[in-house]
């Protein structure tokens, strides 16, 4: 496989030699050491770190569609680590550190752009609360900056600062090291790097059931035949409950819709990722192509439809023009929905399961994209060594039964509210 570099680019430009395909397209073997179900960011990252860090290269990643066709291509590409609860803070900080060197690590430009993320603050109380959050972050070595109104006006001039603003700006909490990355490049980069290390990436291969041998999972039935493995890992985003059901597991998860939007391309308008967590939920950033990428709340009812509904479109549009009135006449280019597996405490699960040979990575709610590298790393650690990485110990499946939930939003066992 050609290593990407300026020299390689020059060579191909001069000689006109075609580029080799980025990852191999093998037929599935009969047996692997490890099978990962789900060829999204998390599954591919798991396979990559299994091969790179844990020396297990006899790995197959099974993807029911094509690489990049699922939630990996449906998120709003935001990467941040401004969490507050023990467990979450360290995990997301580790992820951010992996993001910083990911392009070099994979020899693929994931266009990680740590431009800074700002949480808007709309009252003196919110300012106090954000100061606390910022201090907790700094205590964990995560950069945080509390901004006053004047600083906000300088950094984000297009917000509504008028006296009659629906949401008056009192300040902001900035994580200067947060930002965005190109989501397609992340899956392509992991797929290419994993394939180069010997991982088989099998596309158009839907898992339809598990093969059991004496109570343990010994492989999977797929649309391309039976494939056996000593260990099987699930990393399937919104369909975790369905895979769990095939293995006889009932999980603390509900599937919900999250919509996202992108506008027509505009000239540079917004230098930061902006989050709004006041009376409603809204986040916006500008892509490198100029499109305003934004989203809001869940649709608030169980669904696997990948199709959002109009009340959320209305709410998101209302928040967009309330916060940035200049967007009022911008036209929408695309709008879509993804299926989120929302857990009962709003935190993810990286865990062994009660079924031998089956491992679970899921319940990413709507925070999965930024976690991709750390999720892959920790899941690879768990599957290779049968022991969780210290960073994923708090995220075990049995935490619910033990009452050790990690509820960042503090909204209790109601998945749609996280």
């Amino acid at each position, binding site marked *: 496989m050609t290593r990407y570099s300026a020299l390689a680019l020059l060579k191909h430009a001069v000689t006109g030699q075609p580029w080799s395909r980025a990852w191999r397209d093998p037929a599935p073997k009969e047996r692997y050491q490890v099978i990962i179900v789900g060829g999204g960011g998390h599954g591919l990252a798991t396979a990559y770190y299994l091969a790179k860090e844990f020396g297990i290269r006899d790995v197959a990643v099974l993807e029911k569609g094509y690489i990049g066709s699922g939630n990996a291509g449906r998120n709003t590409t935001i990467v941040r680590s401004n969490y507050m609860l023990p467990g979450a803070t360290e995990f997301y900080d580790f992820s951010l550190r992996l993001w910083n060197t990911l392009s070099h690590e994979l020899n693929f430009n994931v266009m990680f752009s740590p431009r800074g993320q700002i949480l808007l603050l709309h009252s003196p109380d919110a300012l106090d609360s954000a100061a606390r959050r910022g201090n907790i972050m700094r205590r964990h070595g995560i950069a945080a900056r509390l901004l006053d109104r004047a600083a906000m006006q300088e950094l984000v001039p297009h917000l509504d600062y008028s006296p009659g603003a629906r949401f008056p700006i009192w300040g902001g909490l900035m994580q200067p090291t947060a930002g965005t990355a190109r989501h397609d490049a992340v899956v392509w980069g992991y797929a290419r790097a994993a394939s180069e290390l010997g991982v088989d990436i099998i596309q158009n291969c839907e898992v339809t059931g598990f093969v059991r041998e004496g109570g343990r999972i010994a492989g999977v039935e797929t649309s391309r035949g039976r494939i056996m493995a000593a260990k099987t890992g699930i990393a399937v985003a919104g369909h975790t*409950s369905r895979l769990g059901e095939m293995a006889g597991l009932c*999980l603390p*998860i509900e*599937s919900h819709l999250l919509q996202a939007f992108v506008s027509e391309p505009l000239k540079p308008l917004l230098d930061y990722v902006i989050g709004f967590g006041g009376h409603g939920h809204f986040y916006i950033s500008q892509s490198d192509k100029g499109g305003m990428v934004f989203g809001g709340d869940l649709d608030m009812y169980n669904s696997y439809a990948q199709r959002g509904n109009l*009340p959320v479109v209305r709410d998101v549009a209302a928040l967009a023009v309330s916060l940035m009135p200049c967007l009022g006449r911008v036209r929408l280019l695309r709008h879509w929905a993804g299926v989120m597996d929302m857990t009962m405490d709003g935190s993810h699960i990286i865990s062994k399961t009660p079924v031998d040979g089956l491992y679970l990575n899921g319940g990413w709610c709507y925070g999965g994209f930024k976690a991709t590298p750390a999720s892959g790393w920790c899941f690879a650690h768990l599957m290779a060594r049968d022991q969780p990485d210290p960073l994923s110990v708090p995220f075990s499946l049995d935490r619910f039964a033990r009452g050790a939930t990690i509820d960042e939003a503090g909204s209790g066992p109601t998945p749609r509210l996280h």
Partner: protein
Amino acid sequence: MLRINCPFCGERDHSEFTYGGDATVTYPALDAPTEAWFEAVYVRSNPKGPHRERWQHSDGCRLWLIVERDTVTHAITRVEPSRAVLSELIK
């Protein structure tokens, strides 16, 4: 937009309603073992297809309803009051 046919108010947009989650969940006795409470509070079958769920007509009659809705097509096949005594009354 989903349209929910409230047995008391007629067919209305779902934005008038508040979702209340899986209606097949039943709560055990207060002194039931922790395991039973764990199942009721945290574990959900999360079906892909027909789903029995609770909705409250919060901007209308404020009564709780049981709705049967498909989680793939969003088609609503049945709406009834959550309290059997009300079902009897409106017959």
